[in-house]
């Protein structure tokens, strides 16, 4: 499978990465090189094989349903580009 320019732009948008017109061509070439490389996986017989979900056999750990952290709002927003009263500020989303 290979991607065309429209698909490159669509993927970039899905990934929320702005791309310039000049970037689309080279990206298309690079993505297609990678897709051509992984094409060989089509030759493997995977009938009846379970997809891996956990690389080491382990049961999902459970813990008591109790509060273990919190009360650190100031720490959490400390690195944000824009904040007000321990809230993250973003451009207006709803008109």
């Amino acid at each position, binding site marked *: 499978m290979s991607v065309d320019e429209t698909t490159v732009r669509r*993927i970039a948008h899905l990934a929320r*990465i702005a791309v310039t017109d000049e970037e689309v061509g080279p990206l298309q070439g690079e993505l297609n090189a990678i897709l051509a490389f992984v094409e060989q996986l089509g030759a493997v017989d995977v009938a009846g094989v379970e997809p891996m979900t956990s690389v080491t056999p382990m049961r999902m750990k459970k813990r008591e349903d109790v509060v273990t952290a919190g009360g650190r709002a100031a720490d*959490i927003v400390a690195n944000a580009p824009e904040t007000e009263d321990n809230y993250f500020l973003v451009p207006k989303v709803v008109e």
Partner: protein
Amino acid sequence: MTALNELTLAEARDGLKAKDFSAREIAQAHLDAIEKAQALNAYIVATPDRALKMAEVSDEKIAKGEARPLEGLPLGIKDLFATQGVHTTAGSKILEGFEPHYESNVSTQLWRDGAVMLGKLNLDEFAMGSSNETSAYGKTISPWRRQENGTFSDAPLVPGGSSGGSAAAVAAHLCLGATATDTGGSIRQPAAFTGTVGIKPTYGRCSRWGIIAFASSLDQAGPIARTVQDCAILLGSMAGHDPRDTTSVDMPVPDFEAAISRGVKGLTIGIPREYRVEGMPAEIQRLWDQGAEWLKEAGATVREISLPHTQYALPAYYIVAPAEASSNLARYDGVRYGLRVPGRDIAGMYENTRAAGFGREVKRRIMIGTYVLSAGYYDAYYVRAQKIRTLIKRDFEAAYASGIDAILTPATPSAAFGVGEMASADPVEMYLNDVFTVTVNMAGLPGIAVPAGLDAQGLPLGLQLIGRPFDEETLFAAAQVVENAAGRISLPKAWWA
């Protein structure tokens, strides 16, 4: 007397205990060495004040006879580990200004055991790369140089990646040991390129809490150091259960250091025939044969084995790793930390922030990941790759079930290459660096790279040993045999100082 920064970690530990020198002296020796080694660009930031303060505490502990296991030993930390109050970048512009208010679990355990932090080490951006050329903070340069007819070339070489800063700093005596991480070979490939020892433990051995995520089902932390023993000492402190990482295993941490003297008598070492790849340099084949010979002389049985799905590991990795990365890196949106570039609306802000903040390799991998996870392609790519991962793991399980204790392979398909040499290559050529290491991540197994010799140009070459799950001890034992036979590989000269 050996300069304090040229001691091994084990020697430094003994010297501190015997009060031959102080923690402050050995910290200062390293800080001076770092200062002189700017040309290597191994550290993104050095933390001299913190180092000296921690060393002072260590000297007090030693004076009171309360020395902890790593008391006063100066280490470098890969800048993928969150360090409280110290700029943590992942080698990316998108984390500009990020100062975590928390400390990674692995580094917390190192400080708990008395180690001293020298600073944060350079890496490929978000640990994506095999040459440390994708860092937003500049390339790290290897302390090694090619030799031709007895003279050193001036051409700079890469230290490998993604833990290039860790490997270069350890090789150039800018720390006694360093933390690193390995998603497809990022500990073992740079260790091999720089003549250092690096171990990627079994998935789950070290907590991933506080390590900036790349591909969560593959990422694992481990040490790089100058000897097998030093790696064993460091892993003992880095490993252990952490309830904050549900994939961290609740198992006791063995005495890794004690394992190095076990030898390999009675062990069976597998040589996988599928690793004899086309176009492999004769020097690598010779090194591999030599390694097998050394293990045999030490009492191991060496047997050829087959891991039939080996060739599919790298392509499957280039689906699984970017897929997980595209999901993990979705968090860099200009809202909670790091860079923000305004846009006409919130989506525009996300798109502009990520366009300006991520480098080329990272963007490419996010986009591949987004594509293979997108509607209509998920089964054809991601699910198929995860099935192939099951097959790769079964290959190893079959080998171990047939009586194999560890597997010997080359660590890399070549010695270190020159800075910029791969710039014109398509991305896949760079990815081929990981052809021998990536299988280990796909199967969640432990793997160690140990220096085994020099190539015709005087550059280090490494061998890799792959173990059973949670049997790092056998790897340390076998790697020690290789190290004893090969002799310590050390730098011919410090051209940068």
